[in-house]
Each structure stands twice: as C-alpha cells, then as structure tokens.
C-alpha cells in the first residue's frame, strides 16, 4: 500500500524526477561510488505529504541516498532533540522523518548510522520524550550520548570572525557522511532556527556563541571544514512564535513541507520565507551568505518543487 502510494506520487512528480531516479541508480551500479547530484538543483522543496513520503520524494530528486552514502560508510544524522517535549509540540525534529532517513542510509549500505544532539533540557528526557531515541533504535541506528564534555574534541575554524575554535562531538569527526536534520522554528533571538542554527547541537560550549555575537558565530561555524553533506529541513509543523521551545501547540502552523539541499543557507532561506521572513533580514543567514557559505537568494536558485 505504502509502496503503491509512493510510486504513484513518484510518477506524479513528473518525468524529470523519474529520469533523475534512473540516472542516479544506473550511475550507482556502474560506478559503485557516490555521484554528484546530476542536474544541479540548489534546493528541493516538497509539500503536502507526510514527512516520510516527502523525504522519499526529495531524496529521489537528489539521486537517492546512494548519492551521499556509500556501502560501509559511517553516517551521522543530526536532528534537533534540544527540548524535553513530545513530538506534537514541534520542538524537536519529527521522529518519523529521522527514522526514514536512517532507513535510507542503511539501505544505501551504511555500516552504522549515529544520532545525537547536545540538548538544552536534560538529555535523557529529551532523547526519550522526543520519540527520537525509539525511532533511531527501531530503524537500526545508534543513539549516542552527548551530555559530557569528554565526548568533544577541540577543532579550529579557519577564517572565523568570532568563532575560531570549538569543541565538536567526536562523532562529527569519526563519521564519513554528515546529514543535518533540523526542524524549522521561530527563535526569540535569531528569529528563526534551521540548518545553520542546528549546528549548535554538535558543539559543547554554546554559551561562548551567545556571549560573542551569536549570529556571527552561527555563520562562522559554517566555515568549519567538516560540513554536512546534506541538509533536510523539517517544516511539517512549524513553530511560529515562542520559539525555540514553544509554549503550546497553538504556536504551530501545519505547513507540511520539507526542504533538502547540500546548502544549509539555501534550505534556511526557504524556511525563512515560509515563516514570512525575508531571508536577507535574518542576520545569521545574511552574514553566512555574505561570507560565501551558501546561497540566500531564492529567485536565482535552481529549485525543484514537488507538490504531492
């Protein structure tokens, strides 16, 4: 049933996507190596599906997970698990989406898929109540602690204006592929949180960022050599105010969308626009774009839109 639904949707997505899929597939068989995504889309925008289906569609449009993950590789999937709230509150990445991503990675031959976040609330409760620990385990991934400074290693950030070094979780260093899976939310200070802001969950000392020009630090971390290979922005239930923690479910807007890109600024620009914000007015996005970390202008991007 699911597969049929999935196939129908694939067809509905158009010939381009279909051709793309076969192209990616044959390339993979022939080369046995990840291929750069064929026609270079800057952004895949999917709407009106369930999170899992939208991811299936989106990743196909990028040539399948095989374009990112080769057999035997270690993959890090980094969702937002920052808060001790249930999935319905929209404070953390949708567990169903995390689960589906891990399944794709394992299907593509990943040796291990690791998941962690340096949470804001008590980490055990966050892992549990977000539903993500359960989702990871049921998908066959490995949930990794990030609660102790001992798990972090000092790295330098070349050309960072404010942030020149950071203590980064060892899993970032030890993994071959890095998939960033933020959830789109309002944020009291940075106005929105998405792909770039989600990176704060891989470092130990967030306080330093807050104390030293938060927006500049967020952008600076985009220069760190180990960049996410793929950003998947969950915009299914979007917290429009009282972010990033949220006060009640009435803060949520059901957008049923998902954005995929190898460019974190690009997915965030799309997210900002969805929330009614002008991307260039979101300070950390503007700084990051100015530093050449990614594209911010949606008008000049090559966007593949999928409406389910």
């Amino acid at each position, binding site marked *: 049933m699911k597969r049929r639904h999935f196939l129908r949707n694939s067809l509905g997505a158009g010939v381009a996507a279909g051709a793309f899929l076969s192209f990616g597939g044959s390339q993979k068989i022939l080369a046995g190596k990840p291929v750069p995504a064929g026609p270079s889309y800057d952004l895949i*925008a999917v*709407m009106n599906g369930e999170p899992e289906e939208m991811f299936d569609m989106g990743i196909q449009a990028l040539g399948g997970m095989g374009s990112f993950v080769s057999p035997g590789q270690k993959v890090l999937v980094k969702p937002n698990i920052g808060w*001790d*709230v249930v999935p319905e509150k929209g404070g953390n990445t949708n567990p169903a989406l995390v689960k589906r991503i891990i399944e794709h990675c394992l299907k593509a031959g990943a040796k*291990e898929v690791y998941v962690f976040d340096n949470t*804001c*609330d*008590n980490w*055990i*409760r966050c892992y549990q*109540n977000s539903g993500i620990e359960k989702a990871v385990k049921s998908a066959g991934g*490995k*949930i*990794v*602690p990030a*609660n*102790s*400074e*001992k*798990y972090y290693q000092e790295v330098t950030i070349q050309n960072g204006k404010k942030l020149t070094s950071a203590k980064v979780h060892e899993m970032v260093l030890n993994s071959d592929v890095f998939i960033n899976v933020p959830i789109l939310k309002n*944020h*009291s*200070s*940075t106005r929105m949180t998405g792909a770039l802001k989600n990176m704060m969950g891989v470092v130990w000392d*967030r*306080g*330093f960022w*807050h*104390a*030293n*020009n*938060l*927006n*500049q630090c967020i952008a600076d971390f985009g220069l760190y050599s180990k960049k996410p290979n793929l950003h998947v922005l969950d915009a299914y239930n*979007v917290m*429009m*105010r*009282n972010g*990033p*923690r949220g*006060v*009640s479910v*009435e*803060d*949520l*807007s*059901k*957008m*049923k*969308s998902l954005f995929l890109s190898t460019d974190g600024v690009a997915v965030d620009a*799309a997210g900002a*626009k*969805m929330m*009614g914000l002008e991307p260039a007015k979101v*300070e950390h996005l503007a700084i990051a774009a100015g530093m050449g970390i990614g594209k911010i202008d*949606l*008008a000049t991007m090559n*966007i593949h*839109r999928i*409406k389910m």
Partner: protein
Amino acid sequence: MRSSALKHIRIVFSSIVLVVLAFLFIDFRGLVPQKLFAPLLYLQFIPSLLKYVIAGAVTATGFIVVIALTLLTGRTYCSFLCPLGILQDVISRIGGMFKRRFRKYGYKKPYTILRYFVLILTAGILLLGGVYVLSILDPYSTFGRFMTFFAKPVVLLLNNLLATILGKFDIYSVFKIDIKAYELAAYVIPVSFLFLIGFLAFRYGRLYCNTVCPVGTFLGILSKASLFRIRFDEEKCTRCGRCAMVCKSSCIDFLNKHIDTSRCVNCFNCLEACNEKAMAYDLVRIKSSRPSVETDTSRRKFITGSIILLAGGSQIIRSQDNKPVPTKDSTVKEDRLYPVSPPGSSGIAPFTSRCTACNLCVSACPTSVLQPSVSEYGIAGIMQPRMDFHHGFCNYECTRCTDLCPTGAIMPLMLEAKKLTQIGKAVFIKDNCIVKTEKTNCGACSEHCPTKACHLVAYEGRLLIPEVTDEICIGCGACEYACPTKPYKAIFVDGNPLHEAAKKPETKELEKAPGDFPF
C-alpha cells in the same frame, strides 16, 4: 528461639535493605520509578515522623509501625531497617577481618548521660520548631549524605571508566557523566561523620548507635518494655563470655548474666555464638526488677538548661541571613534576597522546618539543579537542598523530587500544578546583559524559557533585549542557567519566601499556513 537462623535471616534481610536504599541514592540513570520511593522509604523512622507530624501527611504512618515493632520485638529496626546501622555492621565486619583485631567488643558501660542529653536536645529543639539538630543526627539522612557525597561519585567514576572502554567498541548504552563536586563547605558535616562513624563502627561496633543516635536512644527506651527479648538461660550458662565477644552493642554483661536491652539491636550474633544454647530470644518473663538508678535532679536541671541555651543560640544563628551586598563594578552582582526552595515545598520556612537534608532529592534530580546549601537558608540550614541555577535549571516537565521526599519537606505535585507553581521570579539586570554591553544579540535566556515570561523586545537598531513578565514566570531558572555572562548573571531568579501561583501564558490564533511555496 535459640537457633542461629535469626542471625542469618537478619544478614540476608538487612543486606537487601542496604542495597535497595543505597541504590535509591546512587541511581544516576533514574531507573527507579518515581512512585516507588515512597513505599521503599515508608519505614524510615525520622522521615516518617516528620512527614506525619509536621507536614501532616496521614499516610506516613511508618514510624507508628516502627514503634509497635519495637514494643513487640525490641530494636529490630536498628539491625534490619536502619541503613546507617546496617552500613556500620558492614564496616565493623571489615574491622573484624584484620588479624590484629582492631575491633574491641566485650561488655562496656553505656554513656548514659551523653545518650539522653543528645536525645533530649534533639527532641527539645524539634519541639521548638527547629529540625536542624535532627537533620545532622538522623541516621537515615546521614546515610543518604554518605551515599550522595561519597558513594555516588565513586560509582560515577567506575561508570565513566566502563563507558570509555565500551565506547572503544562503539557501544553507548553506558554513557559518561560529568562528576561535579558540591560546594566545599557542604562537605564539612558529611566528612566529619564519615570519620566519626567509620572509626567507631570499625573499632567498637554499634557504639555510635548507642551513644549519639537519637533514634537509637529513643527506641532503646521503648525496647525496655518490649515483649520479645534476648535472655540468659541461667542454668545452662557457663559464663564463657563468647556472647559478649560477638556483641556489637557491648551490652552483654555475661558475668552478671545481664543484658542491657536498651542497647541491644537484635543482631542475634550471641544466639549463634553460644555453644551451650544458653541464650534465647523469646517472650519476656517476669522477674525481680533490679534496683533502679537514683534520679539525679542536678543532672536534669543541667540538661534542661542546655536545651534552652542551645535553642536560643540556634535562633540567633538562623537570623543571620546571608545577603550579598550589591557592588557597582564592571558588572552588577545579583542582589538575591531569598534562596529558592524546590517546587512542592510551598516556601522557604515550611521547607527548612521539615527537611533533614538526606539529599535524596539532590541525588535524584535529573538536572542537578538541587544542590546542598551552605548558608543560603542560614547556617542552621546547612546541606538542606536549594535550587542552584548555576548548576542546572528545573526541568519544566519533571516532578521527580516532589514524589520522593520521605519527610514531607517536598510534597507531591501534579505536573500541571507544578507548571503553575512560582518558586521565584526572574530579575533582569540590564547593565550585565550582553545586548547592552557588547551590542550583539544573545537571547539565551528567552530561548530556554518554557513560558516565555522571559521574552525579547526591541532595543537599539536590530538588537533585541530581554524583558520579564512576572505573572507567568515560574522561577525555573532556565534563563539564569543559560545566561552566558560572567561572573555575574544578567538574569537571575530571586526566591519566593512563600511559593505563589503563576498565571497561564496566553495564546492567540495564528495566521494560516501558506498553501504554496512563497518563492
């Protein structure tokens, strides 16, 4: 009964009690369900007494059971249920293993004056409304502090070692936990008692229980009227003295074939040691009473006088509150008027009058926001837990501490009620805030705020600065914890002397989600 079975039952039973109670304190992964704490701690004498009498919890009848048990069987509590007593048995067993025999058992005279002085002092001050002598001497709480201050860090250390090894094999089910010390001054009493009790137990068995412990002395008085007791079978006894040599309480005067029941803790060692089966634990038999000690009126006067003096003195100590003086420097010191007591305690005075500082809540708190105090509640409140927002903040969705307090100092709160209990209010110090001093955005405080009592408002240019709506602030301290300024925070929670009700945050309708991509 003359069989050694009683001793073996005691060893098995008490080992289980010790392990279970120790586990409650070192359970750093929160494996024990919150609802199990109350039944497991039901029979702890002082906590139950305080919960019933002072906190008015009618279900906390454990101490009545203990009194009944004592009247029936003697000081069974001390050997079977008291974790500190059992711990001392373990220590004196180790003492007995040394070849040169550090352990000195055998009949000794009791320290009668000291015993009763401590009991009267503790009870007297409690009646005058001060729990603080009791909190230092309560055996359950002393045990709790040993576990929290010493045992738990050792367990964490071992856990971290194991986690490091397993981590090399890509196994993360055991994880590392950062070990953080409490404030140094909070260690004074636990360390002193560790040495005192450790030494006494190592060398003299239950001397502490029969000299210092007010519960031991009180139950000792009751046990003088108990129905079941250990007695000599005068005909069979050969006065070999084996019983006295194994008596942890040094209460068997074998030459006179007399047992000081008030000091006997029912360990049943003597039953096993007696080759002649001349000792028995059974129903008491009426016999001619021994001449009672004459009442010494001057002694009594001295004791009463001391109580009054000490009670007065402690009141003076209480009134010396520790208020930091605000200083205008490069940063402004937080002007804290009151410490913050945990949710469910209903306020500072009710809390400090019931808490015996066992530190169970400190140990069980998943965020470590509960820390033993030093002088925040006054010197007399030393080690009573307070909310320390430099260590952590109160998890919005958590009620763990409210469910496990055995003394009723923290009473159960439903989650929805806890979310509306204002234990303190956030105070913003603009002159410390990065947004003002560095002219950059931060917002760490409002990011963490679960009610958005702390929110950001327009400041200069693109800058946003915090503002606090008092009515919806619950004093969880997330803002204070997250605030990155040093050494003084730009936002801190000042305690409510009596907890108040917070208002529910208001919500408004949202605009509809865009039906199509807006790009």
